[in-house]
């Protein structure tokens, strides 16, 4: 899933519903979020990402994050998110790790 724009409280609900729709209706279990075109994230946006990780965990699913711009990564690092969720350079790396697992 490729995200763009600003992840704050005004976009959080839509993002949550979109990802949950994929998980609940389509049975998707590996969610890859490409953040290349995300310009801004705050704790509302991070909350949605962490919430999806928590939702996928008991389902045996995985959340992966790729292409994080440096200024966005700084915020994520401060939140401790990279200690919990796997970050990848790009989508290819994220797919690769899924194989054989």
């Amino acid at each position, binding site marked *: 899933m490729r995200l763009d724009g600003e992840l704050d*409280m005004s976009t959080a609900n839509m993002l949550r519903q979109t990802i949950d729709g994929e998980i609940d209706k389509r049975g998707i279990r590996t969610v890859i979020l490409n953040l290349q075109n995300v310009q801004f994230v*705050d704790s509302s946006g991070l909350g949605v990402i962490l919430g999806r990780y928590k939702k996928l965990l008991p389902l045996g699913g995985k959340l992966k994050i790729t292409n994080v711009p440096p200024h966005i990564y700084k915020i994520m690092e*401060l939140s401790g998110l990279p200690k919990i969720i796997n970050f990848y350079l790009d989508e290819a790396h994220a797919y690769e790790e899924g194989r054989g697992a």
Partner: protein
Amino acid sequence: MKSNQINLTFSSIAENVGIARLLIASVGAQLDLPLNDIEELKVAVSEAVSNAIIHGYRNIPNNLVYFDLEVTRDTLKIAVRDRGCGISNVEQAMQPAFSTDPERMGLGFVFMQSFMDDLQVESVLEEGTTVTMMKYFKQTPSPTH
């Protein structure tokens, strides 16, 4: 640096968080702050305004958020005020990972604290909350030309 004062009052709706960020980014650019500092100011403002809307006004849209900026020679003061429900225990609310909502990370105050040089929170139950954040300019940026 010229002193400056901006007071903006807006409805407690999510769309206005982005407007508040745009304003602080413009002021930061005018002050010649480094891009990184501007990004940090945007996050701090976003957190303070989101808190006012989500917690202060419990997402009820027909309320007002007061956003006040004050620039002096060596400081930038940002105050975000609501007339909402107030915080019963400010100390507890400011703890990392304290959140009243499991979908939220409880990091709002952590970000404000990390990205600003000073943070004060005044709150009275049923009267509202004022978050005051300060940025001290380490040195007066030299004129570019």
